[in-house]
């Protein structure tokens, strides 16, 4: 019956999303496999106990029915039996806890790592800082708004794709230092069996050593406000040489960006660029149409800031507004992006102030 029902359902859902994964991912690290084995072990222990208990129960249900003439017996105590079924589960549990403790000790391994990355949770994005490489960037959800609102068909990595994935080398011990900027988040990659809460003001650590290059996807797992469901974690594991190449590319890109910041842009260029920045960085709260959410997030359209003095407008984006959800974006956006988004907000979304700001005036 359930089968027919689900069949009917899968026909109802427009594209074929058939994916009937029912078990945990084995993962791609030694530790994740160890955890998977523990999971299966305890699962089978439960199955065996379940079969025994439910077996006796269903036997009683079928055998000792009054309708079949069963007459109840009078015993209602048996100390031996009761001691036995207290002691045996205790032994099973202790037997179970020993391998679990061993796995825990592996998880708490504190030996020195090859690459160290600070992972910071923000509402609703992740920031990755490579401690030895001077690489520092934010990782935002890349799924287009239209897919979320069902105006476009959903791509296979729907909600599990980001603009800048975390990149790590394969076969190296990578240590994550996890913290948060605002509320508690939790950084999870199922294939690594790494899940650690990101707590504002405090630092946690975790580590991974991935054997196979590939792309691994996860999500934030601690409710962190409105867009908790929209801050995925994507990790690209590269071979050692590809990783080194990527690191040097990042350096080159940083230089190129610095050069770009001194360029003069036209109004059209800034507005066009600003729209993209707005949709990634601002639209989550202020909404794609700039109307905000009354009572929670102010509108951009017609706001005193977006139509007032341009310096004040730049300042609130660069430094945020203390005590509110408005973040300081100077770490997250380049000078070009800030100039673009300010110009966009002043000349789109129903505003038409007519002025613009150049990247070179943003830098302080």
């Amino acid at each position, binding site marked *: 019956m359930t089968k027919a029902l689900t069949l009917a359902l899968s026909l109802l859902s427009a594209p074929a999303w058939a994916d009937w994964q029912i078990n945990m991912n084995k993962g791609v690290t030694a530790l994740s496999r160890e955890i998977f084995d523990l999971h299966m072990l305890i699962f089978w222990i439960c199955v065996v106990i379940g079969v025994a208990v439910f077996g006796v129960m269903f036997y009683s249900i079928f055998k000792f029915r009054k309708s079949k003439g069963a007459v109840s017996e009078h015993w209602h105590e048996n100390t031996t039996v009761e001691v036995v079924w207290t002691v045996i589960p205790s032994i099973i549990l202790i037997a179970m806890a020993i391998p679990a403790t061993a796995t825990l000790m592996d998880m*708490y391994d*504190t*030996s*020195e*790592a090859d690459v*160290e990355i*600070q992972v*910071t949770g923000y509402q609703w994005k992740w920031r990755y*800082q490579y*401690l*030895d490489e001077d690489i520092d960037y934010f990782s935002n959800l890349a799924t287009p708004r239209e897919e979320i609102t069902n105006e476009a068909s959903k791509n296979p990595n729907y909600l599990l794709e980001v603009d800048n994935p975390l990149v790590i080398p394969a076969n190296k011990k990578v*240590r994550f*230092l996890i*913290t*948060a*900027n*605002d509320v508690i988040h939790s950084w999870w990659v199922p294939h690594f069996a790494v899940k650690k809460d990101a*707590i*504002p*003001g*405090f*630092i*946690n*650590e975790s580590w991974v050593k991935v054997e196979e290059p590939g792309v691994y996807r996860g999500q934030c797992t601690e409710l962190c406000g409105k867009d908790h469901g929209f801050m995925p974690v994507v990790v690209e594991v590269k071979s050692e040489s590809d990783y080194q190449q990527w690191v040097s590319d990042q350096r080159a890109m940083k230089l190129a960006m610095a050069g770009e910041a001194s360029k003069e842009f036209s109004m059209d260029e800034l507005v066009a660029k600003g729209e993209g920045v707005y949709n990634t960085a601002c639209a989550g709260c202020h909404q794609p149409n700039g109307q905000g959410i009354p009572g929670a997030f102010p509108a951009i359209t017609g706001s005193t*800031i977006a139509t007032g003095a341009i310096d*004040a407008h730049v*300042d*609130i984006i*660069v*430094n*945020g*507004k*203390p*005590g*509110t959800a*408005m*973040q*300081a974006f*100077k*770490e997250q956006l380049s000078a070009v992006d800030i100039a673009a988004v300010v110009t966009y907000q002043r000349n789109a979304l129903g505003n038409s102030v007519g002025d613009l700001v150049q990247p070179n005036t943003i830098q*302080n």
Partner: protein
Amino acid sequence: MAVHNENHTKRLSLRLATAAIAMFGFGFALVPLYDVFCDITGLNGKNFNQGPIQISTVDESRTVKVQFITVNPGNMPWNFEPTERSIRVSPGEDRQTVFYAKNPTTNWMVAQAVPSVTPSEAAPYLHKVNCFCFERQPLEAGADTEMPLLFIVDPKLPEHISTITLSYALYDLTDNQKVTQVKPNKDKGRARL
């Protein structure tokens, strides 16, 4: 238990009510209890291990990597970073490092750095002899400063720990400060964004 005894019920109810009130108090008592617990286990590496300490022996046989990271939570607009990302020290030797901070805004501000150590097992062995996190740090608009940290790693640090990470989260306490302190703010008339 023959007949319902009014006095007995009254006494019992009062006792139970007292127990409830005591448990309300216990809820609050969990706060200092938690601090004691953290102190012993190193959980979250809170504000302990402060002040001068006497360690006579330096364990030259090994070195430990002490790593510094910084976080600007909330909307803290300061530039704040360690001048050295990590240093190798021998347990028992005292070392000094400095953190750089700059207030890029046009307002006078006060900040408080909150330390945290990982792995938590190492936290009880990292002594902060003198630290900028002991006090609130005021900075004039546009000013910058170098803030010192003097620390010692206890030679009793377990052998298997080779890296200790000390993180500082820098919080903006300017608003809390306003109430208690007359702030020397030259831009008094300027509206805050």
